[in-house]
C-alpha cells in the first residue's frame, strides 16, 4: 500500500490540482486568526468546518485528477480495484492529517488564543479536525466523475450537502424526527461538540466523535464495496 500512496501523492502533486483547495484552506485559516485574541474551542470549531469544506473540495479534485486509462493501468498493477480505492482514501487521510495538524498547531504557535490551549483542547481539536476533514472526503468519494459524470452536477450536489450539513441544527428544527440526524452528515453536531467542549461531559464528546467516525466508516465501506463491482473503462 505504501508504494501506491507514494505514487498517488506524487501524481496529485504534479497535477497541481491541490493548489486551489489547499490555498483556500490556508487563506481562510490565516484570515480567521488575523485578529487576536480568539476563544480557543470556538476558533477550533470554525477551522474544523473550514477543513470539512476544504477537504471535500480537495477530495473531489484528487479523485478526478488521474486519467481513466492511467487508472486502469494502476489497478491492473495492483491486481485489485478495492486496494486502489483504499489507497485513494488513505492518501487523502494523510493529506487531511497534515492539514489538521497545521490548522491546530498554527494558532498555538502564533499566540492567537486568549488563553493557552493546553494538550486536552489541542487533542480534542485535532480529533475534530481530522474527523470533519475525513467526513468531507467521504462525501466527495461519491461525487467523483466515475460516479457523477457531469462535473457541474457533482459540484452542485457537493455544495448543497456541505451547506445542509453545516446548517444541520436548523434543518433538525424544521423537520423533527430521527431522519435528519441519522441521514445528514454530522458536521453540525461535531461543530457543536467542539464549541461546547468545556461544558459537555467527556462521554458526550466521545459520543459525538463516534457518530462522525461511524458515518465516515459507513460511507467509505460502501464505497469500497461498490468499487469492487464497478467497471473501470477507458472513459471516466
Amino acid at each position, binding site marked *: 500500500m505504501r*508504494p*501506491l500512496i*507514494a*505514487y498517488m501523492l*506524487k*501524481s496529485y502533486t*504534479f*497535477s497541481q490540482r491541490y493548489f486551489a483547495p489547499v490555498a483556500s484552506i490556508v487563506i481562510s485559516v490565516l484570515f480567521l486568526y488575523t485578529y487576536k485574541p480568539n476563544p480557543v474551542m470556538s476558533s477550533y470549531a470554525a477551522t474544523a468546518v473550514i477543513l470539512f469544506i476544504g477537504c471535500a473540495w480537495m477530495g473531489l479534485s484528487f479523485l478526478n485528477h488521474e*486519467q481513466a*486509462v*492511467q487508472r*486502469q*493501468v*494502476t*489497478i*491492473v*498493477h*495492483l*491486481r485489485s*480495484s478495492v486496494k486502489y480505492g483504499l489507497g485513494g482514501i488513505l492518501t487523502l487521510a494523510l493529506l487531511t492529517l497534515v492539514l489538521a495538524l497545521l490548522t491546530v498547531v498554527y494558532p498555538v504557535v502564533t499566540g492567537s488564543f486568549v488563553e493557552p490551549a493546553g494538550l486536552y483542547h489541542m487533542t480534542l481539536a485535532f480529533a475534530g479536525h481530522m474527523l470533519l476533514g475525513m467526513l468531507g472526503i467521504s462525501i466527495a468519494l461519491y461525487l467523483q466523475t466515475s460516479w457523477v459524470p457531469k462535473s457541474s452536477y457533482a459540484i452542485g450536489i457537493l455544495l448543497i450537502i456541505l451547506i445542509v450539513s453545516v446548517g444541520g441544527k436548523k434543518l433538525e428544527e424544521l423537520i423533527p424526527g430521527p431522519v435528519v440526524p441519522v441521514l445528514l452528515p454530522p458536521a453540525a453536531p461535531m461543530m457543536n461538540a467542539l464549541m461546547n467542549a468545556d461544558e459537555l461531559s467527556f462521554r458526550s464528546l466521545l459520543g459525538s466523535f463516534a457518530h462522525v467516525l461511524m458515518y465516515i466508516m459507513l460511507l467509505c465501506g460502501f464505497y469500497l464495496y461498490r468499487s469492487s*463491482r*464497478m*467497471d*473501470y*473503462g*477507458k472513459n471516466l
Partner: protein
Amino acid sequence: MTLQQQQLLHLSGATKLYNGHPVLNDISMTINTGTATALIGRNGSGKSTLLAILAGLLKLSSGSLLPAKPKLRISYAPEAFPGLRMSAEEYLYNMGRISGMSTALLENKIVQLLEAFQLSPFRKQAMTGYSKGMLQKVNLIQSLLGEPELLLLDEPLSGLDLPAQHTLIELLKELKHSGTALVFSVHEPLCVEALDAGVHVLQAGRTLMITDAGKLRDKPSSYILSTALSQQAHTAMTELTGYISSQYVHHRYTGEECMEWEVEIAWTDEFLRHILDMGGSVLSLEQRSGKSGLEQWMDPKQSGEATA
C-alpha cells in the same frame, strides 16, 4: 525448451452490455501458458472491451471468467496511453513498486527496457512532452516490467517506429517462449505472423472465427469486372457461396462505373453465369493475389462491407 501448456484463464459465454446494447456477445476462449492470441476485427468489433474484461477491469453482464488461480499476474498495455507530468523513469518505478517488484530488480529492468526501446535519453523528461510513439513505448515498458503470466496488449504496434516494432516482437517472442500467455489486438499482420499467434476474429462483438495465421494467409482469387447490377441482383450475388468482396470501380479506359467482384477461384464459373443471367456484362476476368484473410479483417476502411 518447450513448456507444457497449462490453462491460465477460461472465458465462457461472455456478454457485455452498455446501455442495454451488447458490445460483446457470447464470447468464449481459453488462454493457455506460452501461447499468443491475436484479436482481430474492424473498428468497434469489441477487441478493446474483451481485453479490458480479461484484465478484470470490466465486469461481465453474463458469462464467466475463470482464472486458473486467484492472483494471476496480469499486465496490460491499453490503447492511447496518456502523458503524465512525471518523468518516464519515475512513472515506471512507481508502477513496478505498486506491482510488488523489489527496488534493485526494478531499477535494473527499467534501465534495460528504456535502453531497448531507445528511450534512455528522455527518461528524466516529463511525459507531457512525449510524442505518441514515445508514450506508447512507456506504455509497453510498464506492461513488460514484471514477469506477467498473462500479457494483454491493445494495439501494441500503434505509433511505434520500425526498430521499436522489432524490439517489441523480439521481447514478446522471448516472453512467449518462457511461458507467458499473450493476448493482443492488432491491425497489422506483422505481430500475428511473427508470434505465430492463434487468431480470434471478432465482428460486431461476436466471434466470427477462431483460426490461425497460416489459414488466413494470402490465397489467389478471381477478380471479375462487370457492369453494375441492380441492387437486388447485387445482394443476391453477395449471398452466393465463394463470394469474398465487391466494390465499385471506374473502368480504366471508358471511365464508366462498374463492379469488381473478388470470388474464390473454384466458384468463378458460377459467378460469371449469374452476372450474365442477371443482365450484366462481363468486362474482364483475371486471377491474382488478393488481400490476405488477416488484412481483410484488420482493415478498418472496409468496415462498411463487413456484413456484405
